[in-house]
């Protein structure tokens, strides 16, 4: 299995044909490629730019406070006893309707993410590891998800 953080490799080609595949300094390169290790993701090749550096930007999430209400109530429902199910059925047969208390909307919890970042003189290229989507920004733009 290829981990999310390893889904893209980079390759910088220098004028003498040397290939750089590690580190962050890509100054002087004539081509920089972001190469997916999963066939479904797109490859990105950058030519004709003045390259400065590249790096990987990572995002790890943790939930603080509260809990996952859906998972909690799903688990309660899963553990419900046969006698309770029978009691519910009997109640429903009598036509008793319980008021459903509204719960506040849950915020979607973001997942982890990694982005390849290629810094050029005129712009930056961000490529997400999760889906290969790309974003070109001004050269001093810092993208955080």
């Amino acid at each position, binding site marked *: 299995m290829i981990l999310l953080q390893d889904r893209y490799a980079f390759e910088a080609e220098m004028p003498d044909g040397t290939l750089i595949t590690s580190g962050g300094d890509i100054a002087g390169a004539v081509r920089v490629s972001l190469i997916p290790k999963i066939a479904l993701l797109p490859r990105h090749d950058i030519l004709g730019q003045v390259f400065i550096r590249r*790096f990987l930007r990572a*995002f*790890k999430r943790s939930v603080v*406070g509260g809990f996952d209400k859906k998972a909690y109530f799903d688990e309660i429902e899963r553990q419900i006893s046969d006698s309770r199910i029978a009691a519910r059925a009997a109640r429903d047969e009598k036509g008793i309707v319980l008021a459903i208390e509204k719960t506040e909307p849950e915020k979607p919890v973001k997942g982890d993410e990694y982005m390849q970042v290629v810094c050029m003189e005129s712009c930056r290229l961000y490529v997400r590891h999760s889906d290969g989507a790309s974003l070109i920004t001004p050269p001093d733009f810092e993208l955080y*998800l």
Partner: protein
Amino acid sequence: MAATIQIHELTTNADTGVDKTSSTVRFKAVASTTSTTVDANDPLVVPGAGTNYSYVKKLRAYMSAAPNTNISNMRWYSDGSSGFGTGVACTAKNLGTTFGTHYNTAMSGGSSLFGYTSGSPINGDGTDTGPFVPADNTTYIGDIIELQISVASTASNGALSAETLTLAWDEI
């Protein structure tokens, strides 16, 4: 191979903790040395008057697989909007590398977690400065972040919605 960094909830000192990456940091009425479990035990109680405080939670990054070259620019932030509701606040601050104690009185010197956003984050490596290299593998890296929930008498009873805390870093 890129590094694997985990978010740990510290228990007894600055270098001992429990992995909470993609998991929940549960604020409780007992210290993390007693329980880091995600359950409904030891909940915070809405006071009749005044404010109740949770025991603080201390979070730190742990390198479980080394980077190729190094890791730097660590930062912690929230999404900037609290879903905790009226009367419930979350305070945060950077402890540097001094673990201190577990306590359930009001945190001094902290400010709202939701004031720390991607554009204005908590510096994650201001004291334990990077870059962190492969030699730091299987150690705790960066600063300790301390969090605390406060519950005022105006809060409603019941479980809170979940909020996401993000740890971001740059790696080469």
